[in-house]
């Protein structure tokens, strides 16, 4: 799937949809696809492009969520500011994680990320005085753009679309630029890259920090959209794994991959739920079995994800022109 056309199609469809679709439920699905896709893309910066697989990215998501929620409910500060504060906090933690990434590889790093997200979960659940503990924070809804109190889902689509586009461009930058090549070198073989003079450590830390900041931004937007912050959800390992899932299933290390992955997963879940809802509620749990199996199969058959795999398939069609 070379070329910008798939991405152009995706973003164009997303941009045009609100003009045509009125159904709030479908729009909600689109908002979630874009939001999760963006979060997956943010994860992809660290996990896909820098090769630092984090299983605890919910830590950053939660920081963004709480920053906005606490600043908003305690001091009436606009969530846009909360967004910046959350991003700053996440960057700080991102640096910590980056530091760890230079001392740990592979599964060790993954375990460290899990530990970090769990520590934040526990602190958020216990620090009642500041975070309202496990009861979470209901985010006060004040209508207006400055307070991100938006009812119309069509507007939400555009708000998140902007962020999604930003993330797409950032990923594209990592694909095409010199920095991006250096990062790819670090990802493939860090020692070889180091020996070539690539500032591997700094690049990794930078990638993780940026990834963290952008994930936090997604967390803030999510908070304002859903209206309730629950520490056990927002810092959970399940959520972290979902972020990875979007990128891995869709295409790790490709700019459009996370969005495709998020679209597939969101559509699958929502339709299963709508279909089986109350009657076959037990059957609804099947989507989890599908994810697990899909992950196993994908790792075996198409470790780079769906998009690159489909792209490779398409390119293998018989070419009338002789190849060199």
């Amino acid at each position, binding site marked *: 799937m070379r070329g910008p056309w798939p991405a152009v199609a995706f973003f164009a469809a997303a941009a045009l949809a609100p003009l045509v679709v009125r159904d709030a439920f479908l729009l909600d699905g689109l908002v979630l696809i874009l939001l999760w896709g963006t979060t997956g893309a943010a994860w992809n910066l660290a996990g896909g492009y820098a*090769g630092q*697989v984090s*299983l605890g990215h919910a830590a950053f998501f939660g920081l963004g969520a709480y920053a906005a929620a606490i600043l908003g409910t305690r001091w009436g500060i606009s969530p846009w500011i909360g967004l910046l504060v959350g991003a700053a906090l996440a960057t700080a933690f991102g640096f910590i994680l980056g530091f*760890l990434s230079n*001392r*740990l*590889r*592979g*599964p*060790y790093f*993954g*375990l*460290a990320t*899990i*530990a*970090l997200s*769990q*520590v934040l979960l*526990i*602190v958020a659940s*216990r620090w009642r005085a500041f975070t309202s503990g496990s009861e979470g924070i209901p985010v006060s809804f004040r209508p207006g753009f400055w307070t991100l109190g938006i009812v119309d889902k069509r507007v939400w689509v555009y708000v998140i679309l902007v962020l999604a586009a930003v993330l797409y461009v950032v990923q594209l930058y990592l694909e095409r630029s010199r920095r991006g090549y250096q990062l790819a070198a670090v990802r493939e073989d860090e020692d070889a890259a180091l020996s070539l003079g690539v500032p591997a450590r700094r690049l990794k830390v930078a990638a993780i920090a940026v990834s963290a900041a952008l994930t936090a931004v997604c967390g803030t937007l999510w908070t304002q959209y859903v209206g309730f912050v629950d520490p056990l959800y927002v810092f959970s*390992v399940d959520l972290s*794994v979902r972020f*990875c899932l979007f990128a*891995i299933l869709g295409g790790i290390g490709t700019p459009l991959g996370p969005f495709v992955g998020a679209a597939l997963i969101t559509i699958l879940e929502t339709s299963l739920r709508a279909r089986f809802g109350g009657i076959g509620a*037990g*059957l609804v*749990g*099947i989507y*989890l*079995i599908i*994810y*697990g*199996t*899909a*992950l*196993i199969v*994908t*790792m*075996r058959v198409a*470790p780079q994800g769906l998009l690159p795999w489909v792209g490779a398939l398409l390119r293998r069609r018989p070419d009338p022109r002789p190849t060199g």
Partner: protein
Amino acid sequence: MHAIPQLLASTLLLGGIYALIAVGLTLIFGVMRVVNFAHGEFLMLGMYLAFWSFTLLGLDPYVTLVLGLPVIFGGGWLSYRLVMQPVIHASHNVQIFTTVGLSIALQAIALVLWSADAQFVRTSYYAVVVRFGGVAMNLAQIAAFVVAVLFTTGLFAFMRWSYAGKIMRATAQDRHAASLMGIDTGRVFALTWAVGITCVGAAGVLLAPIYPVYPSIGLQFVLIAYVAVVLGGLGDMVGAVIASLVVAFVEVVGSYQIGTAWKEVLYLLLFIAILVIRPAGLFGQRGAEVIGT
């Protein structure tokens, strides 16, 4: 203080179980260089095995342990062939996500098949308490501890003196050299995985009389096992056992001194501290964590 003997007893009982779980995990890593993120789910499956044997066949969990061992081993072997073998030579990340996928799938299957309702194995002796020297201990927990010790000792003996054990240790040291020596690393991996799963599955059977059984019970035990395994040095079995006791100690004493609310934070911070200061763990080889192999 009169609490100390009891605290130590609790440490020992808990630590013994953690050790059995951790030992399997560290063995798999030591030989195969794979962190099994689905380890907790195999624990859960072991618990369900005990539950269903008890409910449908009337078998006591300790009987299930003996009779079920081949079943658990077979299940482990099968899961290796179906899931792990195709990716055994792939990159770390691929392997990590394969086990993550396995974890998701297994938990989801349990949820769909058996629902989220907690189940209980209520044996006739579940409430028997053994008391001496100011210490009270649940009989089932003591039994679990004893069996865990026997199991772990048996495993060490196997690794040390049996031919298969030697081959596994050789593969752990250097898989390429081992295969050059004519060792079929593929089969060693299958065996290692199956043995590791058997350990954790057995731990599950032992835990069934003590804890309620439900699909997501794996996580609370396995997170501690990860901490113990890293603390002891990934791949080091003795280290895993000692570290399990250390972690249990931190948990129990931390609960008592500081408050139960913070005990998870304690061992998680301990975990992060180890990763920062000495990632190879107490007994691991320095630098192993950077090479990652």
